[in-house]
């Protein structure tokens, strides 16, 4: 499992904490960085605002994105990420409570890698998180520019 961070974009503190617990239960050791709105997420990725000076050559291994967010919503965040060469290859998984066909359609049209509905049941959520971690942090081979990873 590579050691890079996971960026969670989530405005609800309850959900961010649940995701943190689920990652711990699933045995995924990567540090979870939480951005509480879409603008904050982009600031993190591009080293602006409160993230001024962050080394943006060290991009997260995975971004988990909620759709309904304050300021910039998830679709706008996706659009910005896919429109910039520095973040074009970042694996983005939408993690949301909505299964409205419109949201699913729009996310794929904007280049999301995967779309997952947050299960209401916590046990199912842990198992979803475990599978997401297994796939994106272990099985998936990222683009070479990203894979100068931090192997011990």
């Amino acid at each position: 499992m590579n050691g890079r961070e996971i960026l969670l974009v989530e405005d609800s503190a309850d959900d961010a904490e649940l995701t943190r617990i689920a990652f711990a239960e699933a045995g995924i050791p990567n540090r979870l960085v939480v951005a509480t709105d879409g603008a904050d997420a982009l600031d993190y990725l591009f080293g602006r605002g409160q993230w001024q000076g962050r080394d943006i050559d060290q991009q997260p291994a995975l971004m988990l994105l909620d759709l309904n967010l304050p300021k910039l919503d998830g679709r706008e965040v996706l659009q910005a990420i896919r429109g910039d060469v520095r973040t074009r290859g970042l694996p983005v998984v939408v993690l949301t409570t909505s299964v409205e066909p419109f949201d699913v359609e729009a996310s794929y049209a904007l280049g999301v890698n995967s779309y997952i509905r947050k299960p209401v049941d916590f046990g199912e959520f842990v198992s979803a998180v475990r599978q997401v971690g297994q796939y994106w942090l272990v099985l998936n081979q990222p683009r070479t520019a990203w894979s100068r990873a931090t192997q011990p």
Partner: protein
Amino acid sequence: MSPDSHSAPPPASPEDRLAAAEHALQALRSQQEVLAAGISHDLRAPLRAIGSYSSLIAERHADGLSEEGRDYLRRICEASSRMEGLIEGLLDLSHAARASLQARPVDLGLLADWSLTELRDATPGIDIEATVQPDLVALGDERQLKQMFDRLLDNACRFSGSEGAVRVEVSGKREGDRLHLQVRDHGSGFDMRYAARMFEPFQRLHPAEQGAGHGLGLAIVQVIVERHGGRVRAESRPGGGSVFHVELPAAPVAGDGA
């Protein structure tokens, strides 16, 4: 020119009235979509927190609670999962009413088998014995008709007593261009005086202890059947099981020359 031709505006033409009605309908539809999206996201989010944190307490901190505390906690967990079912039902009802229908020949026997498989997986404690007649082919939307079977068969199993075994029969026959489908159970049945009311949203004929759900299942069935230009009715006597009669358009037979 008549004397009052200047005092009253000319009556709107039928075309204008139709256009105005279509406009109003469109506005209502998009309002409903916004509401459904709101239910889907904004009601579910706090519910996830309630359900997840209470199940975490049950898993990790139950030892620190009294017997009474554990009982209250169990009630919270159960209520939150009931509410999840209710939100799911409301969304399905709203989708059933507004989703566009893709009509093509659909093998109802396959859909019924598929529904039964899922139902057996979801209720491992209940032994479901089913007979499904093959070659019932309707003309309709596969996803919606699958949803119809999900709800009808769930209903059949819900009210089939507590002996842990359920018997269900799905059969039908074709008459001209109509298909008459029957879903029969051998459960507790219902009082025929309330036969029409059970298709209205939130109407229940049984208390929760006897298996009642959120009161949306049969309303969803009715919306789906009526959007297919069909009809649904129920027949029963208390203790004697129930039969749901569904009439749907039949798929054209090869060689009909249509």
